[in-house]
């Protein structure tokens, strides 16, 4: 394990990116940070800029308008970083498959930008906060 990976896993700071979600996954992510689940006790902290982040929490299908911003946000995030795709829309395209406003599955766009991107999928509509915590724990123990 490189020292970069070791440092990444110590205390994951996350940046939340909404790429055209219906707000349902976003509400569950906010739920993670509030006292009931309080992931800050594990060192997972929401930050206000992708330049401070170790991980991106991506929700939404990836609309034509938003995907341009996602490319900028991903290129500004220090590498290595983990991209968590939260919810059915972000994992595939869900019910919006082949919609006129959909740019494509986010993982495909991410692989085109960076073939070595670390991508974790948390499916669900929306995923439960427990599932999100479990996804983060499994990903961090796998890398």
């Amino acid at each position, binding site marked *: 394990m490189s020292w970069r990976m070791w440092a990444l896993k110590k205390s994951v700071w996350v940046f939340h990116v909404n790429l055209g979600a219906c707000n349902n996954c976003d509400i569950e992510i906010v739920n993670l940070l509030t006292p009931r689940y309080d992931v800050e006790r594990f060192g997972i902290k929401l930050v206000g800029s992708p330049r401070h982040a170790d991980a991106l929490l991506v929700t939404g299908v990836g*609309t*034509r*308008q938003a995907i*341009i911003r996602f490319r900028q946000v991903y290129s500004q995030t220090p590498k290595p970083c983990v991209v968590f795709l939260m919810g059915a829309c972000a994992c595939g395209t869900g019910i919006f498959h*082949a919609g*006129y*406003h959909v740019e494509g599955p986010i993982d495909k766009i991410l692989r085109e930008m960076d073939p070595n991107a670390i991508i974790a999928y948390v499916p669900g509509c929306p995923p439960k906060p427990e599932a999100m915590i479990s996804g983060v724990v499994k990903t961090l123990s796998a890398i």
Partner: protein
Amino acid sequence: MNQQELKDRLAEIKDKLIDIQQPLDDRIFLSCEAENAYAINKFLFEEVPLRFVITTGIDSDSCYEILYHYAYDQIGYIITLKAFIRDRENPSIESIAPFLPGAEWIEREIHDLLGIEFRNHPNMRRLILADDWPEGVYPLRKETRQ
């Protein structure tokens, strides 16, 4: 105003309408040609008066339909005015936003998605399509397929 008085008010514009239907007790459908829609909307909103709910647009087989939905809250009626736009090449209809500012955004949205021109609209800019979406492509039209 009770049900009978409401029906009497609606009967005043009978000559501008194609027909009046009442499939349910509290649901009235009026239909008209696009040319008469502005005058009928002004009558419904200012004279009756009804509460404006929303406008919707449909790409029907032979024409475009603009549906203006109104509510009459005292007796719980929903009244829908259907305006038929027969010209499929250059569909256009008079905007109701000059006297009904609440209709401004929904008309911009219908213009984005169905490409219907709203004449005399005060602020016809793109509302919900992406910035790089090509001009002249309307995603909810039947001929637009991916």
